[in-house]
């Protein structure tokens, strides 16, 4: 934080240097927003807790792009944030959101140092998408983009801190066209002697030969504790190696085949008891895409993920389902902790993980029970089929997909769970109207004795209707419905990610979030949205509802 002054002065000086030089040595970009929220809670019999909230903030993230030479860039994002109601410098915070050095050595080797965004494959390093939306209305995705921005969720990249090299070998006039290399090492956490946490690094490399037949890749990721950075008690390491490929249509006529297979090994070395715990396993995933039939995009794939396959960078959930928002934290005169729901996940202060770790985080079976940790979810096998039809009518795209999965090995019993997911989404653009719709129905079943039986279904529905009222003015609206009923066993994992506590949990809930508002666009990226939300939640223990008014002004520049 102390650098802020120097950055400020630098900024100030750079202003003058801009004027003097033709080459833009310093350029600016950024985002700014004002977010004002007013919320009212309705719950039966509550005379002890606040039921209204009014708050917000304005902030500017000023990105500075500095080019000391033609092949070097320094990028930093400074944040100034002012809380709503903080007058004359009250409740102001400063931050630096990013500092990256990028460049290219001798026009051949690209390097990135500092805050870098990384992604490899769904089985090695992959930031899995949100689980609480199917094909969300604009009014909600507008808000979700804030969460992504704040947590550095860009597509499926992970924001990491370290260094990366990229280069490629080319083989002219050869079937092997080129080989791309990507090597990186990032710092996962620093050593903390007090909590006996050793320094942990995350390294990886990816070699992708591109041939006339298709692309193949060898990928390795390695998350490991460095020895002797503290008085070590326990050292963790995980490595995953995979081989992936996509085969061109020339190979199999009309069919694009793709596959990924690999193997992982996880070690925990206890230096006190001199114990070494190891688990290892493998997975495979194979499938094809074709457009051969009826103008449909068809994708079919099969996968088999071993129960002990671990790749922390790819087995993760964005939302921390265990967090509790501070807004209306306790409700009713019984001081019940308010169950969190889709309103909180979008608007209130719940925590999203912006870093992965070695353990499997708590998941919520009523949002995603089939593949909670993404495509690399361990202990799953099954088939997926996806059908997409574009231009079914003019402007109408329909997508249907179904997944049938099961566990490979039972959890707590020899009986195994089977999962079925039916999902469809629809986008339709007609004149001034834009309709979005998505539904996902998920069923989980396990037979056996009463205590083994699992029968759970959940349904998420997303709907949205946008109407263009004027050139820059839209009416936007949306609804999200989430229902679930049945039972599951919630799992807590030990350090080797084996479930050791199983809590029988019963669900019978329904939550509905609906919203409507007006959106005014300023140019291509800046919007002012005023919206009203009505949210209701009910389960077998408590019912409540929240009404919300929001003004959100987003400037992208």
């Amino acid at each position, binding site marked *: 934080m102390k650098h802020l002054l120097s950055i400020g002065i630098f900024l100030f000086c750079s202003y003058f240097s801009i004027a003097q030089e033709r080459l833009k040595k310093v350029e600016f970009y950024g985002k700014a927003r004002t977010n004002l929220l007013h919320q009212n809670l309705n719950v039966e019999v509550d005379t002890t807790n606040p039921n209204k909230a009014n708050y917000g903030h304005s902030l500017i993230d000023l990105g500075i792009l500095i080019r000391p030479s033609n092949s070097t860039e320094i990028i930093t994002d400074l944040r100034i944030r002012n809380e709503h109601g903080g007058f004359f410098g009250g409740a102001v*915070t400063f931050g630096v959101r990013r500092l990256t050095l990028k460049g290219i050595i001798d026009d051949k080797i690209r390097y990135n140092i500092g805050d870098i965004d990384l992604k490899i494959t769904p089985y090695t390093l992959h930031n899995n998408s949100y689980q609480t939306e199917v094909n969300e209305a604009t009014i909600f995705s507008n808000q979700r983009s804030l969460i992504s921005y704040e947590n550095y969720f860009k597509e499926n990249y992970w924001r990491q801190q370290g260094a990366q090299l990229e280069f490629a070998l080319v083989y002219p006039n050869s079937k092997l066209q080129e080989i791309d290399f990507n090597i990186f090492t990032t710092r996962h956490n620093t050593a903390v002697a007090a909590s006996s946490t050793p320094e942990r690094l995350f390294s990886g490399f990816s070699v992708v030969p591109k041939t006339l037949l298709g692309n193949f890749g060898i990928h390795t990721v390695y998350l490991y504790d460095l020895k002797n950075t503290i008085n070590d008690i326990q050292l963790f390491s995980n490595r995953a190696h995979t081989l992936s490929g996509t085969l061109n249509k020339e190979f199999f006529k009309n069919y694009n085949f793709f596959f990924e297979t690999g193997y992982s090994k996880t070690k925990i070395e206890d230096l006190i008891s001199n114990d070494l715990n190891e688990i290892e396993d493998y997975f495979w995933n194979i499938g094809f895409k074709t457009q051969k039939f009826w103008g449909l995009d068809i994708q079919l794939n099969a996968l088999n993920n071993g129960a002990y396959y671990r790749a922390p960078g790819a087995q993760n959930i964005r939302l921390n389902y265990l967090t509790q928002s501070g807004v209306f934290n306790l409700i009713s005169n019984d001081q019940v902790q308010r169950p969190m729901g889709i309103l909180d996940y979008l608007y*209130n202060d719940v925590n999203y993980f912006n870093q992965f770790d070695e353990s499997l985080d708590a998941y919520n079976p009523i949002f995603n029970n089939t593949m909670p940790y993404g495509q690399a979810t361990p202990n799953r096998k099954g088939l997926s089929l996806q059908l997409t039809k574009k231009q079914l009518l003019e402007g109408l795209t329909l997508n249907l997909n179904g997944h049938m999965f099961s566990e490979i090995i039972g959890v707590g019993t020899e009986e195994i769970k089977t999962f079925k997911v039916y999902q469809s989404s629809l986008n339709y653009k007609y004149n001034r109207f834009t309709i979005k719709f998505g539904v996902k129905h998920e069923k989980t079943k396990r037979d056996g004795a009463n205590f083994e039986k699992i029968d759970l279904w959940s349904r998420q529905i997303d709907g949205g209707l946008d109407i263009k009222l004027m050139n820059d003015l839209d009416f936007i609206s949306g609804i999200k419905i989430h229902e679930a009923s049945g039972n599951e066993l919630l799992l807590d994992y030990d350090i080797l990610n084996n479930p050791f506590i199983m809590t029988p949990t019963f669900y019978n809930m329904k939550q509905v979030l609906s919203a409507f508002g007006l959106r005014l666009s300023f140019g291509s990226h800046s919007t002012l949205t005023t919206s009203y939300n009505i949210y209701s939640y009910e389960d077998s223990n408590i019912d409540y509802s929240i009404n919300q008014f929001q003004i959100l002004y987003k400037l992208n520049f």
Partner: protein
Amino acid sequence: MVRVLIIFVTFFLTVFSLKAQEFEINTKPKTFKKLNISGEYRGFFQQRYFHKPYILSTSIDDTLYLPKQSILFGDATQLPELTLNIGATLSNNVAFGTDLTFWNMKQGTFDYFRGVHLGVNLYGSFKTSLGNFSLRTGGIQWLKMSRMTFKAFEGYNRYSLFTRNPWDPLTKDLGERYSQYFDRGAISQDERWGNQAFHGFSMSGLGLPNNFNLMLLYGKAQSSITQFTTVDNTTLQQSQQFFNTQFYSSLIPSYVIGGSLSKNISNHSLALNSMNGLSFNDTIGVESNNYSVNTISFQTYFDNLSVIGEIGYGKYDDLSAGESIAIKFKTDKSLTYLPFDVEYFRVSPNFYNNNSEIINSSINDQDITQVEGQGVLRQNGSAILGVGQLANNRTGLTINTEFQLPLFKINLGQTIAKEIKEGSNQLTYGRTINGVTYSEFYRWQYASNLGPYSRLNKFYRGVYETVNLDKFQLNNNLHFNSIDFQIKHHHKINKHKYYIYYLGNYNSAQQKLSPFIITDESALIRQYSHQLEKYFQYSSKLIFSTYLGYERVVGNYITDTNDETFMPRNQKTRALGLGIDYKLSDKTCLFFRSRYFSFEDTNFILDESEGLETTLEIKVNF
């Protein structure tokens, strides 16, 4: 594994050539070209030496004095050493602005404070077939609507120029400040002047059909108290930046919502204005503390007469609605020989709006000792106010006029007012002379019940005194008389311009109606102040100034009497100042001020002080 790697590498390296990479930064966002940075540097040094140190407090054991000498680097009035205003117009309809401020107390620790002053402002404008709209979010936005809804008091431009305000702008010509005051009757003020600070969302629409204009406000005014936890930037978790509520210690709503719809009809205009404050006194949002003000304001201009006024009603919580009227007639010389400005006003005791020009003197809305930090303390209880200043529970008449003689400009004004219903048994008055000097006795805080007799209260750049009245001797509502008298003179001595300004303020509060200020003992409080200042422009780069101030406050036996002397207030305030304005270079000026100040109350002998205060201010604009 290593062997395989070696084979792999040697095999491939024999035939390879490294691919040429283009320097395209795929994550590079679209950048904008121009960032405007402007700002000012203000170096402020102050030295104060007491001949008679001021008593902060007394108790049986101990008397606590202010130190005999003190030195201050940097201002204690919330204005920083360096202000950078950063802004950019991103496209023809979107812009943002913010500022960064830095200051250092020059304590030898190299510890810089930094902050923002006016916060984060985002702008947008859009055109529709209905008209042009512009909106702002964030804040601080400096805005005004109408006198009774959302505006700060501007008065009749009668003030002393000798003491410089931190925000006083640098003028191109060094003497402009003084010549403007003579020529135009006012000096250039910054954007704050007459406006209220606002945080939140505001929208204005201009050129709407049928000449309508629109303004909407939703957010927080300074009167909307927000409770924050202490923000510590050094331990702030960057990873939790998204948390909307992390800095709030309470989310209980406290906000204002208001708007105005105005219409221009040739020269005249008519507006409907509304301002509503919503907040709660408790922590769970049950006991509301709401007020609502709705008015009609109008301006009509005829050849030699214009009528400007505002009529409305206000409602505070469960109190019955109260009316508020202020109508001003301005006549031209051609009609009345001298131009007159006559205003009738009547503001009900139940009319309440702290965001307006109307000072609250009748509704006990909050404990004044609660106000801390960013809040601004307001006078509470019956107050002796200057000419033209409105307050609730008061009705009266204000007359202003001005005329010119060769080399002289004279203006005067008088307000006669009375309380509508019996007010509190307290009366307040501000100390006119040396007010800023006193307020700097208490830096960084807004505190009340100060001084050896616990009768002084500090607000932003000023102090006011609370007088307790003997309720049993009061038999009528309070009446107030104020007169302002100002003479301005300008001439040259050997091509050197000089300006002499005299400003007299005379106030009295008593129990009967009087056409003129009361000068005898029947006045509860009599307050007379005289300020004489002279500015001598030696060259375009150098101006000498002198200042003389004298203030008398006399109370009668219905007000506090001293336990030892058994006599009421008898105060004398003196000020003598010397100053130099020197232009170091273009956009860089140095201001030197030295002020002798003294205060004595012959009947409350502990309340005394005498000293010399010297300030040096360097100001750079860029």
